[in-house]
């Protein structure tokens, strides 16, 4: 696995950050100067020196799109962590890659591309503006380093992009078409991506003076999400292939489901059709052969908006368990904000880490739980402190614009 998040630049740092409840949310003064109501965000602290150390010379020096950089960093970390070699052309056609992205071309790098066009200087774009802004660009640059020859593609499905990438990779392996897939997603950062969300008034605007208090999933006072960037990457492969290599196995994917509410029956561009969410959760469990009682942890979407209580109501309806038996529930978003298309893959890295290493990470800013959530979930199941505990089954969901839902069920691997 690999990860680049606002509070960590690799898996080891991320584990520590999750356990300590470390926030990566900061105030960016330049957003105030251009009249953003929400002046908070989460940018992974990647410096030029860090890029020079971890990426090939050309990518480190010349590629400016943060979404591409984050994907290359997390993808390479995942590849190395899985014990695989960097040998371009050296893996057969059953090894592929799926790297999703959201608003790839709207990363802050685009300011250097848009102005020259309008000033009649489009020739100054050079050769990199196309691959750096095409939706498949993050994967294209990552594969310029890895040189894989199987299915190389990208998905883009708003906030479910990352979890959908993993589910699609899983299904491709399950179908026998691929034996090994590097699945990742990435989102850049900055005012061009975040401005649209601020205009929609879905971002947190009441915490500019207290950045780390801004992201408050499940809180009675949630006032909007904190936008952020980053990338997560997971290498998926058949159990036989992983065991044959003696690879480190973090978790087993049991199954999952992706669907849409069709923007009907309560669903819309920005809201989920509750029946479809419930159907997605129950179908994912059926496909995985898992009963609701077996779930130890819900790794929710939970963005810190007014949608959180509705999400929890949907979980409660789908699982249909007595309140006392409601599983633990958490999300890294209180620490890292909402990485949009990067969210699903980063959060799946968190899920797999919790399974593999026996812990449940805390949620920050849960002093006042929303009353609708408190009716359904015992307070001790919304941890505000690290819980060291062996857990076997995690259900992970993301929900996205366009009324899209994606749910995955992961199980601890007994090596």
């Amino acid at each position, binding site marked *: 696995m690999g990860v680049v998040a606002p509070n960590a630049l690799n898996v080891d740092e991320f584990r520590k950050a999750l356990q300590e409840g470390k926030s990566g949310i900061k105030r960016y003064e330049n957003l105030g100067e251009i009249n953003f109501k929400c002046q908070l965000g989460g940018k992974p602290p990647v410096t030029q020196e860090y890029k020079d150390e971890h990426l*090939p010379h*050309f990518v480190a020096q*010349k590629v400016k799109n943060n979404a591409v950089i984050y994907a290359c960093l997390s993808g390479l970390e995942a590849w190395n962590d899985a014990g695989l070699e960097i040998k371009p052309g050296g893996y057969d056609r059953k090894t592929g890659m799926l790297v999703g992205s959201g608003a790839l071309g709207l990363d802050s790098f685009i300011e250097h591309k848009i102005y020259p066009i309008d000033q009649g200087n489009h020739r*100054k774009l*050079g*050769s990199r503006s196309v691959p750096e802004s095409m939706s498949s660009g993050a994967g294209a640059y990552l594969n310029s380093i890895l040189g894989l020859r199987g299915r190389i593609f990208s998905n883009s499905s708003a906030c479910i992009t990352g979890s959908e990438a993993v589910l699609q990779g899983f299904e491709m392996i399950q179908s026998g078409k691929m034996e090994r897939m590097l699945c990742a997603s990435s989102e850049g950062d900055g005012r061009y991506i975040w401005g649209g969300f601020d205009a929609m008034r879905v971002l947190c605007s009441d915490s500019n003076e207290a950045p780390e208090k801004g992201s408050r999933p499940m809180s009675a006072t949630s006032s909007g999400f904190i936008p952020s960037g980053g990338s997560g990457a997971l290498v998926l492969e058949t159990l036989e292939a992983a065991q044959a290599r003696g690879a480190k196995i973090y978790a087993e994917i049991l199954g999952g489901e992706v669907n849409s509410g069709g923007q009907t029956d309560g669903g819309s561009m920005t809201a989920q059709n509750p029946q479809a969410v419930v159907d997605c959760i129950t179908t994912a469990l059926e496909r995985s052969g898992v009963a609701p009682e077996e779930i130890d942890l819900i790794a929710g979407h939970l963005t810190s908006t007014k949608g959180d209580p509705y999400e929890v109501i949907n979980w409660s309806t789908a699982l249909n368990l007595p309140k006392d038996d409601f599983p633990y529930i958490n999300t890294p978003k209180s620490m890292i904000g909402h990485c949009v298309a990067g969210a699903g893959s980063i959060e799946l890295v968190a899920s797999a880490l919790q399974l593999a290493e026996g812990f449940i990470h805390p949620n920050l800013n849960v002093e006042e739980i929303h009353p609708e959530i408190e009716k359904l979930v015992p307070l001790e199941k919304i941890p505000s402190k690290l819980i060291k505990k062996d857990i076997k089954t995690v259900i992970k969901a993301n929900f996205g614009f366009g009324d899209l839902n994606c749910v995955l069920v992961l199980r601890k691997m007994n090596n």
Partner: protein
Amino acid sequence: MDREAIKKDLLAIIDPYIDEKELTTEISESSDLINDLMINSAHLVDIVLDIEEKFDIMIEDDFIGKMDTVGDALDIISEKIAG
């Protein structure tokens, strides 16, 4: 600006575009950018833009076709600087 000084700046500009670092020890004026230094041809336009920025000159598209070797690039830059 003498030719050696220009060459030093030029080599710094093309360095990131050379994948095979062992090639950088053998660069001479006769080195062909694409065939000897194995630079991706798509990156020639980037090298031209980097040169324009570094030396504050403008290199028209006609010249890009003539810039086959390191020496060619030095000729073009020298000529443009001289105005």
